[in-house]
């Protein structure tokens, strides 16, 4: 059968099709390894292979030799068949293969342990193993030799399959332990005593696509993070044979019992997250920026913290029936606010607004409107006014050909709202009537925001409120070294990411340096939750 052919054929280069290539390599090693050390592996893999062959005719052709003989790049047909192959692998084989791959290397891990003369079995524990994304997780290694160099490495795959990783170099203490809450990293992705460094310092692994940003689309599933402990001060690229132990953690964007509800009502497009229980709950309206679409993970986290949260789409969403201009946006947001107020499980007089980037402008417009009375407002790095160019970006037609012309760029070619969002450049009449703000307002500012002039805008808001005798309403949290995208804590920082791909790739420079940006996310989230608590719950 195909199995025999597989054993005899050469292994041609599959570097362009990563995962199946590696899988097939493992299987090939298992097949050709004639030693008796792992008799178990060969026979089990054979059985599994048989099952896969039965399931897919395509698979049989693929493995029987069509793609294994000869040189050259894999064809489109090959890629398609490999995709089918991979689907079945994922469904039926991965649990076994994961084991096999590790079994192959575990043989070497034992050898290393013998070499170092240690008869102790190192143990790596993470607690909690299942936590929310904004929760701290304690990582501890035990039963190691004293004063010994080790590396802790965290890796995870995003929904799109990109590999993100971070690592830290540690030295074990006199009792042979490492604790991230106590010890200092002396090298790697972060330095110093950083209990959550393995999470916030994550970056795409070398070789991954450029300009990535971690944005979870399906908030009902966790991110699975594998934390590994390795010998010596090494990089994550070192072979797995140096791995001593692994702990797996799940990081969730939603607590158990949180309800996710698709809202398509009165033309409003959004997702409502309700905490578990009968209510009535305080609520927030959650607004993002000009990236458009529906971003749900901040709302799901807020619902996990007890606030009903309504993430609303206002541009670039397939279910939006009309293209909004600014006055259309006012009416639209009013409807969204009323959807919250009218909800039977929501406390109508305990509704706040959170806005990021352009969402700040929309939030400020709502908070200064005589028709609505939110209880509080949180602004993250956004403008208090607009101008003709910015309106054009907002109101631009949806077709993708014209898309390109409307995105503003700076001299380096990055997406930038710097000029058009400067208070000095506001068009008359577009500046929000800040003096009419009647609710407590918190402005979270990244001082290294390279995308928008957030410092100038927050200064403007502060000055106007002071002049109106309303300084007591205003709180500014200003973070040096933080960029534009101040998000949920312990999520990776993107200084730069891809904004649009078609018809031409545009990158956006968000700014921020990783360590201070992570500190800003952690601190601002805590303070924001406290602010919401004070104004929506007390």
């Amino acid at each position: 059968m195909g199995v025999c052919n597989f054993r005899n054929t050469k292994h041609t280069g599959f570097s362009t099709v990563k995962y199946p290539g590696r899988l097939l390599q493992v299987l090939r090693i298992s097949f050709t390894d004639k030693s008796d050390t792992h008799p178990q592996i060969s026979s089990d893999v054979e059985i599994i292979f048989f099952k896969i062959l039965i399931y897919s005719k395509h698979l049989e052709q693929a493995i029987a030799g069509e793609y294994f003989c000869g040189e050259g790049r894999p064809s489109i047909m090959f890629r398609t068949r490999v995709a089918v192959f991979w689907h079945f692998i994922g469904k039926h084989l991965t649990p076994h293969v994961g084991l096999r791959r590790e079994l192959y290397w575990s043989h070497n891990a034992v050898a290393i342990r013998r070499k170092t003369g240690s008869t102790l079995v190192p143990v790596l524990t993470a607690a909690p193993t299942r936590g929310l994304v904004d929760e701290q997780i304690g990582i501890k290694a035990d039963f190691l030799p004293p004063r010994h160099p080790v590396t802790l490495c965290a890796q995870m795959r995003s929904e799109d399959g990109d590999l993100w990783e971070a690592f830290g170099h540690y030295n074990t203490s006199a009792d042979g332990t490492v604790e991230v809450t106590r010890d200092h990293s002396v090298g790697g992705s972060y330095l110093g005593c950083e209990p959550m460094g393995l999470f916030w310092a994550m970056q795409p692994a070398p070789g991954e696509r450029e300009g990535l940003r971690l944005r979870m689309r399906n908030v009902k599933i966790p991110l699975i993070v594998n934390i590994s402990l390795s010998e010596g001060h090494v990089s994550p690229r070192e072979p797995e044979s140096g791995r001593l132990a692994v702990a797996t953690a799940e990081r969730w964007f939603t607590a158990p019992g949180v309800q996710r509800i698709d809202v398509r009502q009165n033309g409003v497009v959004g997702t409502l997250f309700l905490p578990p229980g009968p209510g009535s709950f305080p609520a927030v309206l959650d607004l993002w920026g000009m990236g458009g679409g529906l971003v749900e993970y901040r709302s799901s986290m807020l619902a996990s913290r007890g606030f009903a949260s309504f993430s609303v789409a206002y541009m670039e969403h397939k279910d939006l029936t009309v293209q909004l201009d600014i006055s259309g946006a006012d009416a639209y947001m009013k409807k969204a606010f009323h959807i919250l107020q009218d909800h039977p499980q929501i406390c109508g007089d305990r509704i706040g607004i959170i806005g990021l980037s352009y969402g700040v402008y929309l939030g400020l417009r709502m908070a200064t409107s005589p028709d609505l009375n939110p209880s509080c407002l949180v602004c993250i790095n956004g403008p208090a006014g607009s101008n003709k160019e910015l309106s054009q970006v907002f109101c631009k037609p949806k077709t993708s050909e014209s898309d390109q012309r409307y995105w503003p760029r700076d001299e380096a070619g990055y997406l930038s709202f710097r000029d058009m969002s400067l208070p000095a450049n506001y068009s008359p009449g577009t500046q929000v009537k800040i003096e009419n703000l009647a609710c407590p307002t918190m402005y979270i500012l990244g001082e290294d925001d390279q995308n928008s002039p957030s410092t100038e805008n927050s200064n403007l808001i502060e000055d106007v409120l002071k002049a109106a005798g309303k300084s007591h309403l205003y709180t500014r949290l200003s973070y040096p070294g933080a960029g534009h995208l101040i998000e949920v804590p312990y999520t990776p920082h993107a200084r730069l990411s891809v904004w649009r791909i078609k018809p031409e790739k545009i990158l956006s420079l968000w700014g921020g340096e990783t360590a201070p940006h992570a500190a800003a996310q952690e601190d601002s989230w805590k303070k924001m939750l406290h602010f919401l608590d004070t104004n929506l719950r007390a």
Partner: protein
Amino acid sequence: MRQRKIAAMSQSAPPPILSVAPTRALVDETLRVRVDNLPPRAPVTLRCEHRSEDKDYWEAYGHYVSDAAGAVSVADDLSLGGTYCGREAMGLLWSMRPVPGSRTGLRLRKRNVRTPMLFTISVFAGHVDRDFDGRPPLARELVERWYAAPGVRRVEVEDRGVRGTLFIPSGPGPFPGLLDMWGGGGGLLEYRSALLASHGYVSLALEYFAPGELASTDLEFQYFETAFDLVRRHPAVLPDRVGIFGLSMGAMVAISLASESARVEPACCVCISGSHFFPRDQPLSQISQPNARNVGKIRLDDQQNLIWRDLGLPVSGDLSRKADVRRINCPLLLVNGQDDQNHPTVEYAEDIERMMRSAGKEHLLTRLEYPDTGHLIEPPYSPHFRATNFMWDSKKARVTLLWGGQTKAHSDAQEDSWHKILAFLQRHLYSAPRPKARM
């Protein structure tokens, strides 16, 4: 209409806040439950509800009074009534029992360990004892309790006749291993093995007969030796760090393997509610189960539950019917309940100690005995079952066996023994260096 709704709501105080942490945890982790924003000195009821895989409803509840600040903390405050009393941080879990009106003789055992157990924790106004479904709670939270930690791999095993499920901790390993066996009820229960793997042990949950087939099984001792060997030779297992974990009949098999087997050398044994009978030249079905000779010793309690305890008494002096525990060479932990109504396990433990002392091996033995504790000593915070349905022989009618134990004492025993069991396993399978004697 909107204005009226807002006016009505702004007069009412914000609802109480129920906080439960952690919302996702392993079944042996503790839970913190508190309520805030209540009126001061207000009577409330905290309730925990679970719908089992068999679609039965289980519940536990406690009556509390909020303090001057309007708060209730289950870990700190006293429950004044309900399914548990006093300061009981985990009472909402361990005191669970089937809701009134349920089928009788139920036992709560999770079959699918790939999904969590879901518990709904609610707070009600007043001290409520019944009709919980008929009244709206003030607040509600959902909690997931898992048997398997993330990354634990589950592999179905069918090899050389051995059937079971292997659980492997996350990571390259290799790890210490365990052969994990349950009792005479039969079938395949995976939850304890999944939990042991979550603590770092490769654990094989062994299936040895289907429920109700003990009386007819033709199982041989060799089956267990092969199963142990399977674990020992697994590439993810450290071959000199494999132990045996058994409850009831499983414990009996463990002691037999440790004493009588030439092939098997466990690194340590944990035996819960076990005996040291050994099926020397007899089928397994004849041992520690009622048979024609001793069936007359079965008693009934006032609820028609069967008490099998006397079947094993008096403890036989005849060495041919017992495992020769004098030959055990590994640390042995015996965990028993003094109110065990199914087997006289404390008497057995005394006999085991006597025999081991006579061979100078008592330093290997650790005995844990708990007052008012029954036969089924399970992982902590699982409900206590004093008497449940048991399928002894599928050809005969289903019986109800009395296991014994008083709920509070039994739950304390489950919690205490589990910590000690994990410490015992860690000491003997993880941190103990293997001295290599030079001859």
